[in-house]
């Protein structure tokens, strides 16, 4: 197991945001993290990124508890992409990639920047300020930043939210292609069920801070007697407690 989450909980004041969740992700697999808004997905990702201290439980990556590792040792192997966080708007695309490449200690940085910018088709707006780009362009730049260090673990929080279908499809295709060429374990939080079905080897469904189901897409759809993941999601999200 590459990532193992054991009895992970987070309590904010009196609010139980994540309630003793357990799951694991095999190396080089892509796992979808699904659930309605406020179910604890972002908090779980925040704990895996070391931004939020768990109230209880363990996060084990490559057989090492992340609490026992030096912060930098683990963070240099992880990266994160979300449309809800941004890169400095007043810096050009190239400057942002250079700064983050240096922060991640990327070797042969110039070559890596050229490589990633060609892959994600961002080279023609390299010298423009990031804040002046369209949502689709910003999204690709953000994805480039998250891949600059060739992470072993990639956490994606709604990577195609607010993108038009064409750019959304481009991003999904790129993630598929990148995954096939590189050794990367991905945890994908998304509300786009087609995206999850297309990209994920298995899924974890959360509700009210708990895991209510997990398995492959087909297993879960079949288990709940629905035709697709969207219908299954709605059934679980609208059920009284979500448990079957």
């Amino acid at each position: 197991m590459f990532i193992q989450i054991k009895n992970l909980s987070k309590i904010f004041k009196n609010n139980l945001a994540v309630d003793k969740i357990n799951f694991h992700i095999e190396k080089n697999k892509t796992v979808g993290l699904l659930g309605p808004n406020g179910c604890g997905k972002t908090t779980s990702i925040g704990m895996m990124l070391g931004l939020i201290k768990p109230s209880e439980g363990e996060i084990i990556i490559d057989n090492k508890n992340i609490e026992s590792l030096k912060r930098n040792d683990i963070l240099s192997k992880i990266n994160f992409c979300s449309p809800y966080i941004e890169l400095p708007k007043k810096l050009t695309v190239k400057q942002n990639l250079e700064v983050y490449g240096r922060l991640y200690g990327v070797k042969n940085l110039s070559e890596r920047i050229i490589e990633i910018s060609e892959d994600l088709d961002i080279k023609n707006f390299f010298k423009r300020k990031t804040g002046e780009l369209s949502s689709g362009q910003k999204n690709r730049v953000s994805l480039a930043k998250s891949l600059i260090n060739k992470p072993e673990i990639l956490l994606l929080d709604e990577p195609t939210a607010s993108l038009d279908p064409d750019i959304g499809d481009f991003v999904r295709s790129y993630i598929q292609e990148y995954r096939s060429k590189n050794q990367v374990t991905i945890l994908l939080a998304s509300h786009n069920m087609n995206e999850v079905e297309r990209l994920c080897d298995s899924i974890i469904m959360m509700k009210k801070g708990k895991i209510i189901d997990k398995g492959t897409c087909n297993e879960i759809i079949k288990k709940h007697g629905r035709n697709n993941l969207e219908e299954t999601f709605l059934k679980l999200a609208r059920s009284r407690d979500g448990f079957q």
Partner: protein
Amino acid sequence: MDFSKIYALGLRHIYLISNSLPRIVDLIYWPTVQIFLWGFISKFFTLNSDYYSNTVGIILTAAILYDFLFRVSISFNMMFLEEIWSRNFTNLFIAPIKISEIITSLTLTAILRALIGLVPAAILAIPLFGVSVFKLGLPLLLLLLPLYLFGVTLGLLVTSGLLRFGPSFENIAWASLFFLAPLGCIYYPIEILPVSLQILAKGLPLVHIFEEMRNILLNNTVNYFDIIKSISISIVYFIFGVIIFYSSYLGAKQRGTLINMGE
């Protein structure tokens, strides 16, 4: 400490400044206005006050030194606020950079920002008012050191507040220095303060720095003991600031405010 990462974070702020002419102008504009304002006040006092009659520009020198403190502190705060305003906070805190490296980078870049603004203004004071802060010589560096440390400390305390209370703490960032200024005895001797406030003021490095500056300019002697005292007090405050920053960071991790922090 990895200096390539310290440089990388500094580079982010150097790019920010170099990409924008209005930002460069803004950095130079305020210290220059200060120099003009205090230059004329200084000139007036020189002509009309016995206390200042022997030393031209004592107020202007104080204004330049105080502005250095102000610029260092504000620069430190501004660079931190830039991360919040640009919603880049999460990206920064998930990068493999130690908190000590973040502090070091902000500390080193703060002096660069402060000097961009202050050096042209200090040079301008020479032909305009016949006052050169550089005439203080080596003791100038010894006076700037505790000011720099104390400016960074104030920056650390304000950024700790930002970590603890979020962007709503921003207004305090601007007000922090004005709060301490009356006790700093920047433009007047400590004897002006009521006795109870004198005790408080002596706990700040500012009093010792500005008293010593006046001593050098009025008496042409350097009291190294007072300078060492001001450096020592500044170091104590700096260590306190670092501890508060770390504890605010750990508190923010506990409360989950590091994720999605932004305007």
